[in-house]
């Protein structure tokens, strides 16, 4: 799919009598397709290795012994080659292959999910014989057998193309399905006692060219011809995979991956694919509610917004910091911007934070030179200073894995525990919580390595790989039981030692990068500028501005809970689609804060425990219910589409913010999501030039990386989708104009008038954040000899709302276990599978244990948001300490 070949590497060959051009190394089937001749196929998939097994793509190729039938998916076009795709011999072969494929195929199309979008159906119609001559009994298997919680296999329909098994082995790297048997009895199977647990299993369903693999959530849910589609971007995490959103009768039926070169190559993770079903849940919030006499009562939007305006005004009268706004990563860029303007520009509070104690300092994320996913995949070295990428940003894992396995990428992993990428890492160095900076110092200078990383050879190899450019650092949160400033400090040390390195922030919440860009962080204003640098510019654009830097989520919650040493208390909280009770690592603090806050406004889409603490509930539209844009980890801005009408009176977030502003006495002038974007493009300096026209153009279909000019924008029209590679996705004809050269060039540095303001005497455009910020790195005391240090990591299927709301996924949340170095288990005298008692400053839990030799001594690890013994790991985390030390005892 790459477009790297220069014209000099092109050559000519003859295709059906025409002279056409091919690129060096290009498969005949692809070269023919680019030349406008579609060769029918089943097993061929442009993102996987060719196997040439279905024999549907046979063409005649002239050779020394005359023209012979050759699989066009397996041989490369060559200069002067003479190829015939439409001779009688080819047509007879196509007829024959299709007849063979159909003899044992059940032809239960009327009850098959694939019927209507089936490559076997479609190509039989186009290339096959009209009638079957088969009168024997077909091969029979038990009708669908589940091969995982999500995927069912109908072996009668299978045509043995091996797309699914190749995907599992080549792309996901987990060969959990393979063929057994031979001849007619060959069948796809899982291994005995080993289920198909891949996080990417849904892709096998998507690329199956028949109805052999079906996904339980979509099974029998719709017929393809009843589906309608918009193109959008998945916001379940922040990778930004491009998707087709399909619905029927205002009900979302499924998501399919769309292949774009810079991001997802057509793949989706199962969480992204299936969690979208949450939008269909029956208990969605459909009307505004206000708490009256202790119970939430449905009211009009007018009354609800009036109540909110009154409550928030009362809070900020006592000081702007009395109001805290938490959340915003669920919103579109437009929603995030509108709320940032209401909070900072209308209410004057800077205590706004889209991250929930699980992120990184905003100045660091926005200031470090940003890498694209392509840059990471084509780098010489990627440093992993983050959690398990497969658990947090699954499709980024696929890209990095592919680059490490098939390409020249070397991975240097700095992590407290083994991850899914450890097996592919050139160097894997371990450290205990609090030691990340020391480990980086040992790598980039001659610091003393932490005990767990005292491997001179590995350190030397790591140093060698860091010296080889280009280097990309993936920085996230290896542990949520460790203060964010500690990993930020390590990232800062890397940035200072490697001035050419670029960074990819591994923050996983849907649009958290967009929310930070839009200013939903303390000390930050839209456009990646600091509060101080942007003061004059935004004073002109917005009028009011916060007087001083506000609080982040942890401090907001602490101040709401009464722990506001010296500062003012927080009396009012606005929760923008966030639920601190499940999202904030220190569970106890979140509960105390919500119980203590005087006035809580929840902008939410569905019920949850957090609503018990809300005084006003504002129902918001979900993903797929409102148009707008989202921003991924690269800073790539892409369209999200609206496919569904929001339920009841739920509104898009930008509209809620805009109407609230009116109730607060300020008309922001937003009358459509487009006008919000227009204002963003005008006032956010990082987004200058990324106009609606650019986003709507053909070149903008893959998204545009901000700031403009930092990454190439495709000017070409996207190649048409291959209906056999991705059955079910319709090519979307984009409405916008083709992007013209020049339209996507970097904007000039001239000042632009802020909206509604006179241009005379307009302020100078503020500088974007750049470089490494000041950090407030806490001191970490050495652990005492009796304690173990806690690592709290993420798993893909956790108890978060995205998973819990979807029946198909909720069952996949497993019970957690405490992972302990086996020597520590031995020292305690606890056998694997046994239990230990854990004591922290906040709780005591009895938890099951398993040995994990990848962990350093005296370091234990558990996953957040899954049940752990008689509690969860969040119960043990105390925000007051930079690392969490626990006493671990045998029972």
């Amino acid at each position, binding site marked *: 799919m790459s477009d790297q070949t220069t014209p000099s590497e092109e050559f000519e060959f003859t295709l059906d009598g025409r002279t056409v051009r091919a690129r060096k190394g290009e498969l005949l089937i692809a070269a023919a397709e680019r030349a406008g001749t579609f060769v029918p196929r089943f097993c061929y998939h442009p993102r996987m290795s060719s196997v040439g097994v279905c024999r549907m793509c046979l063409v005649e190729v002239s050779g020394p012994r005359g023209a012979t039938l050759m699989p066009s998916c397996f041989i490369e076009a060559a200069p002067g080659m003479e190829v015939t795709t439409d001779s009688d011999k080819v047509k*007879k072969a196509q007829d024959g292959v299709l007849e063979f494929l159909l003899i044992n195929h059940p032809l239960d199309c009327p009850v098959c999910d694939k019927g209507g979008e089936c490559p076997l159906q479609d190509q039989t119609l186009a290339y096959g014989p009209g009638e079957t001559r088969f009168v024997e009994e077909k091969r029979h298997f038990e009708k669908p057998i589940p091969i995982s919680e999500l995927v069912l296999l109908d072996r009668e329909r299978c045509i043995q193309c091996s797309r699914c098994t190749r995907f599992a082995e080549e792309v996901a790297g987990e060969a959990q399905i393979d063929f057994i048997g031979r001849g007619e009895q060959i069948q796809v199977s899982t291994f005995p006692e080993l289920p198909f647990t891949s996080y990417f299993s849904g892709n096998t369903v998507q690329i199956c060219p028949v109805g052999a693999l079906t996904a339980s959530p979509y099974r029998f849910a719709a017929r393809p011809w009843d589906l309608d589609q918009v193109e959008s971007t998945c916001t379940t995490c922040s990778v930004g995979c491009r998707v087709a959103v399909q619905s029927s009768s205002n009900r979302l039926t499924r998501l399919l991956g769309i292949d774009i070169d810079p991001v997802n190559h057509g793949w989706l993770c199962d969480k992204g694919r299936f969690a979208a079903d949450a939008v269909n849940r029956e208990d969605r919030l459909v009307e505004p509610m206000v708490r009256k006499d202790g119970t939430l009562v449905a009211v009009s939007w007018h009354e609800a917004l009036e109540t909110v305006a009154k409550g928030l005004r009362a809070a900020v009268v006592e000081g702007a910091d009395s109001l805290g706004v938490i959340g915003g990563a669920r919103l579109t860029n437009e929603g995030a911007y509108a709320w940032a303007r209401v909070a900072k520009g209308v209410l004057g509070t800077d205590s706004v934070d889209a991250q929930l104690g699980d992120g990184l300092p905003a100045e660091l994320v926005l200031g470090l030179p940003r890498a694209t996913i392509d840059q990471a995949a084509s780098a010489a070295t990627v440093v992993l200073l983050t959690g398990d990428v497969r658990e947090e940003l699954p499709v980024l894992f696929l890209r990095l894995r592919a680059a490490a396995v098939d390409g020249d990428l070397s991975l240097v992993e700095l992590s407290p525990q083994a991850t899914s990428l450890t097996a592919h890492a050139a160097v894997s160095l371990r450290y205990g919580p609090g030691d990340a900076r020391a480990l980086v110092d040992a790598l980039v200078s001659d610091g003393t390595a932490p005990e767990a990383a005292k491997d001179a050879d590995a350190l030397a190899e790591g140093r060698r790989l860091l010296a080889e450019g280009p280097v990309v650092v993936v920085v996230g949160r290896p542990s949520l039981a460790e203060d964010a400033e500690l990993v930020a400090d390590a990232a800062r040390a890397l940035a200072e030692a490697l001035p050419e390195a670029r960074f990819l922030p591994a923050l996983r919440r849907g649009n958290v990068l967009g929310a930070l860009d839009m200013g939903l962080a303390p000390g930050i204003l839209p456009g990646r500028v600091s509060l101080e640098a942007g003061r004059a510019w935004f004073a002109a654009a917005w009028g009011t501005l916060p007087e001083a830097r506000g609080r982040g989520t942890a401090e907001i919650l602490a101040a709401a809970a009464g722990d506001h040493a010296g500062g003012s208390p927080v009396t009012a909280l606005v929760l923008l689609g966030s639920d601190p009770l499940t999202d904030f690592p220190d569970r106890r603090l979140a509960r105390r804060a919500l119980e203590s806050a005087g006035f809580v406004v929840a902008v939410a889409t569905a019920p949850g425990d957090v609503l018990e603490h809300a005084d006003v509930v504002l129902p918001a539209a979900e993903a797929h219910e409102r148009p707008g844009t989202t921003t991924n980890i690269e800073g790539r801005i892409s369209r999200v589409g609206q496919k569904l009408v929001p339920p009841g009176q739920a509104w898009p977030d930008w509209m809620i913010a805009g109407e609230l502003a009116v109730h607060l006495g300020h008309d922001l002038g937003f009358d459509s999501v487009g006008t919000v974007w227009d204002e963003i493009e005008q006032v956010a300096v990082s987004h200058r030039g990324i106009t609606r026209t650019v986003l709507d153009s053909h070149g903008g279909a893959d998204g545009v990386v901000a700031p403009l000019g930092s990454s190439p924008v495709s000017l070409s029209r996207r190649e048409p989708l291959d209906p056999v590679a991705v059955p079910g996705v319709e090519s979307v004809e984009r409405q916008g104009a083709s992007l013209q050269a020049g339209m996507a060039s970097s904007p000039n540095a001239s000042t632009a008038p802020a909206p509604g303001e006179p241009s005379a005497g307009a302020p100078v455009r503020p500088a974007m954040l750049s470089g490494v910020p000041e950090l407030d790195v806490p001191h970490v005391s050495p652990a005492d000899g009796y304690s173990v240090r806690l690592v709290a990591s993420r798993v893909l299927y956790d108890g978060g709302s995205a998973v819990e709301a979807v029946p198909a996924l909720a069952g996949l949340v497993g019970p957690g276990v405490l992972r302990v170095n086996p020597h520590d288990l031995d020292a305690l005298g606890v056998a694997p599978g046994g239990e230990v008692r854990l004591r922290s400053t906040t709780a005591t839990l009895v938890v099951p244990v398993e040995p994990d030799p990848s962990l350093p001594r005296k370091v234990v690890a558990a996953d957040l948001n899954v049940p752990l013994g008689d509690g969860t790991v969040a119960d043990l985390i105390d925000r007051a300490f930079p690392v969490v030390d626990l006493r671990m005892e045998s029972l």
Partner: protein
Amino acid sequence: MAITDPPKIVTARIGHDDSHTLGRYLATGGYDGLRKALTMTPEAVAAEVDAASLLGRGGAGFPAGRKWSMLRKAPVTYLVVNGDESEPATFKDHLLVERDPHQLVEGVVIAAYALQVSQVFIFLRGEFALGLERVQAALNDAYAHGAVGRDIFGSGFSVDVVVHPGAGAYICGEETALLESLEGKRGFPRIKPPFFPAAIGLYGDPTVVNNVETMSNLPWILLNGGAAFAALGGGRSTGTRLFALAGHVNNPGVYELEMVTTTFNDLINAPVLGGGIPHGRGLKAFIPGGVSAPWFGPDQIDLPLGQDEVAEAGSMLGSGSVVVMDDHTCAVRAAWRITKFFSRESCGQCTPCREGSGWLERIMERIERGQGREEDLDLLLDACDNIAPGLTWPPQQTTICVLGPSIPSSISSAITMFRDEFLVHIKEGGCPYE
């Protein structure tokens, strides 16, 4: 000259009960060919084999010397010996691995020296329990004797030989499927081009794959010279060959015969060889080279046992298996049985063979059981044509490997030669021979 006069090249020793032991082998000139080879340059050894014009004995009949010369030069190359003899009625390698394993080992080391490979794999059919035992024992003895391993006979040449038992799939006799299986993968044939073993073989390295019988000829050729070998036989078919005679003959078995100078008639009817058809019955048809070969009728019984002579007559000498059918044989049933074998042994990888073999088998069974229709004959031939376009010989193919075009041979032969017999099955609603 009697048909038994020419020298026994590969079966000289098998009359002895202890023919498989190192003692008997050494007592009958064993490893002298290797000793001689080690005094020559590898190129000279290869030249000797080239001069012998030794055709591969696995079935395709490609000249062994030419095959060796096509080995791509690379830092690592392999020699793999194909002993996965699994076709019905083919059992000549079976004899060699059980009765003269040292001859095989010696041939392998000579070939390894000529090719300068340091690692050989002998892939033996897993069902050859005794053969596996004997080849392994012979190897162990040969290692102890200094004929395999480091610094063979003080020559400085070293090679390791590993015996690998197959796991019961006929398709692993196809050389690229064999390599896949050897690598620990499913026995799926590779697509040629580009996966010609001489260019991209075992573990991606250039590999020569030779048959057991081919290897077993090498000690004699080295001792007696390529010219002596080439002096036997005629045309391109030099030397002697093992023929596995099966079916309706009085003396089924393996016979080593000089090529070309001997005919099918000699093999089937000579009293010292096949001894004729039992019960005084007549010859209905015979398969000249394994069950994937087109059949011959009695009119072709005087064809010489020569590769090109059989090919020109429209079939192949193939694996050296000759199956005789007397005039009480049901052609439909015979072809059905062969089709059933290929259907069971299709690897299932590519569509025409996986689906076509099962379909053809079911149609053949239906006709044999008396439920055929006249249009089934055209259907059979057309479905065969979709696997082997044109039904020509040698066949073209829509499949990855040659197992696919092996399927139509017996069906198209049976229909062409015995169409009336099919019609009787159809009209009478059953098999006239039951």
